[in-house]
């Protein structure tokens, strides 16, 4: 027998859970402006998330998928992107979206049951939140193909979870991206759980990064709680893609500290101790410590940041709560560019019966 191919999966972490450098740090790790910016976004994301859960609990928001614990992975991805790159997220990557320019009010509108939440003033070409798992991987590949065909210096990134790596669409997207050398990065945010299904039941693979081998593209695993590692490797991946070297897969290992959504009760299927242990390695602690060690962060700054974040979130909530219901006819008016007259009767029927009651969001 002859060995005809071999593959390795590497793991990268720059900051230990305690916030100490654990490897040769990249330039990014000394760029204080970038670091502070990312930390601010991570914090705002967390404050936003906490508020959103409260809104849901008090009947002011629909079912909501928390991002608690994913802040480094999400912000790190978006921070590595250029504005005219395109993001195809799944459904809980608010850190990435906020970083890209989507507003908190838009995110709330979406989970508050209003399509206008996906009509971002911000990144006009980003794909909206995507609920059907892993389907967005193909959209990212398609976007990348559009950029390639037009000779544009742009990349696409899709994000899905560990559970999403079981869907055929995920492999199909990686395979075509490999075969056509597309400028796309597939991010897998492995938070260890797909609702109640732990990663060990999802797949027999030791890593999710190794799934790249099936597509002939590079795969790497990074500590998803280390924003420096996430951003660094996503930047490298985008660089490769822009250089015409094609696609790759990055697995960011983190943990879902919250329930799956506000409709879930994770105490049914996982141990408190596991969650408690994960809490000690969560992403904000370590970057905060690192910034403190660098001498550019302190408790005062932290308090100020939290205040600012709270104010921002409150303003967004106000805006959200005061957005009146969409017009009844809006469910018809965005269906087609060329309105089929055939449907006008239905439209009129809907208007005739249209509810005008308040603007309940819950």
């Amino acid at each position: 027998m002859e060995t005809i191919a071999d593959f390795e999966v590497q793991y990268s972490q720059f900051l230990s859970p305690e916030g100490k450098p654990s490897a040769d740090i990249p330039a990014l790790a000394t760029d204080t402006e970038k670091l502070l910016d990312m930390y601010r976004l991570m914090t705002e994301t967390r404050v936003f998330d906490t508020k959103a859960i409260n809104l849901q609990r008090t009947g002011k928001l629909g079912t909501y998928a928390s991002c608690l614990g994913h802040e480094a992975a999400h912000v790190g991805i978006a921070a590595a992107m250029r504005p005219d790159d395109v993001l195809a997220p799944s459904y809980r990557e608010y850190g990435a979206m906020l970083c890209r320019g989507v507003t908190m009010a838009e995110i709330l509108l979406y989970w508050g049951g209003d399509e206008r939440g996906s009509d971002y003033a911000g990144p006009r070409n980003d794909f909206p939140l995507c609920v059907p798992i892993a389907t967005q991987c193909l959209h990212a590949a398609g976007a990348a193909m559009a950029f390639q065909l037009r000779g544009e210096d742009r990349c696409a990134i899709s994000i899905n979870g560990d559970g999403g790596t079981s869907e055929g669409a995920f492999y199909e997207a990686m395979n075509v991206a490999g075969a056509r050398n597309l400028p796309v990065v597939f991010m897998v945010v492995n938070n260890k759980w797909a609702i109640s299904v732990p990663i060990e039941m999802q797949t027999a693979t030791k890593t999710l990064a190794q799934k790249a081998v099936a597509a002939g593209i590079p795969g790497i695993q990074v500590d998803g709680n280390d924003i420096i590692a996430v951003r660094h490797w996503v930047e490298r991946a985008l660089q490769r893609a822009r250089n015409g070297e094609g696609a790759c897969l990055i697995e960011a290992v983190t943990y879902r500290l919250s329930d799956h959504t506000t409709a879930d009760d994770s105490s049914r299927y996982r141990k408190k101790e596991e969650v408690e242990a994960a809490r000690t390695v969560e992403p904000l602690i370590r970057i905060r410590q690192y910034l403190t060690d660098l001498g550019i962060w302190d408790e005062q700054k932290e308090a100020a940041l939290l205040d600012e974040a709270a104010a921002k979130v409150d303003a967004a909530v106000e805006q959200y709560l005061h957005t009146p219901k969409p017009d009844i006819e809006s469910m018809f008016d965005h269906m087609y560019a060329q309105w089929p007259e055939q449907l006008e009767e239905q439209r009129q029927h809907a208007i005739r019966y249209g509810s005008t009651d308040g603007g309940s969001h819950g």
Partner: protein
Amino acid sequence: MRNSANTRFDMAAPMGAHMAEVTLIDALTMAMAWELEHDPRVIVLGEDVGVNGGVFRATAGLQQKFGVDRVQDTPLAEGMIAGISIGMAAQGMRPIAEIQFMGFIYPTVDQIINHAGRMRNRTRGRLTCPMVLRAPFGGGIHAPEHHSESTESLFAHMPGVRVVIPSSPTRAYGLLLAAIRDPDPVVFLEPKRIYRLNKQDVEDNGKALPLDVCYVLREGSDVTVVTWGAMTFETLKAVDQLARKGIRCDVIDLATISPIDYETILESVQKTGRLVIVHEAARTCGVGAEIAAIVAEKGMYDLQGPIRRVTGYDVVMPLFRREMDYMPSVGKIIDVIQESLED
């Protein structure tokens, strides 16, 4: 022509032993537990059906009771769930596969239309496909995007596949048992809005109800109203209000969406001369169209006026701030029934 003569059921169940006051979803759990207990070929599989007992708790307690082999969490891939169920069914098992929401059922379409519905025919009966594909469907619970659709008609168009929708705890229990025992594939769609809307005494006696027949929920000679799933609730409310004005309707719960028991519908239309169909799915090519077509074909001379449909609109199910404006409401149904009486 009907498989069973005794298909006139009220919302109440007969009295008996092991009676329990249960919701529709409880009744489904009971039916699965009964069959797991009595038929070793039966297994339950799907995303989060194990420890978690399903995101709606339809399989709650089943894994604890029957073990991790009989009640299996699967990796996250609906096409896979359908495909391995077909493989198992062809090799003598009786899988009950759960798709978490109907919005995620589409990756199964290839396996269901190209294999499940064809296995018996293409092998002349050598291999068969006794499986059930369960999925909650329908709107009205303020759910996120993609969680509220009703696309039963896609499956109703597939030869070789039965489509069944219960609308009460009693029928949930009896029809799910029938679906599991049927030697052919059944897509079993569960109106999640009424999972817990009311309770009925359901006897846990392992008795299945007949498939391929309608259930008559109200009798009246003025208008025939055909509906199914959660819409039976709006329809009964509408009809009961009209009854107070002296208008009496036959209310028919379609129950088996495919094949359609059109004899029961035609008999009713013969009596009433008027037909109103109520469904939540988008109108165009919905199952209501088929019912209308059959009656326009076979019951035309009985009709005293146009056939009418009260349905969802031909638009994407709106996010929840506007979803109730999409759905057929009691008011819309009442108006259409009254209109039909003006013909």
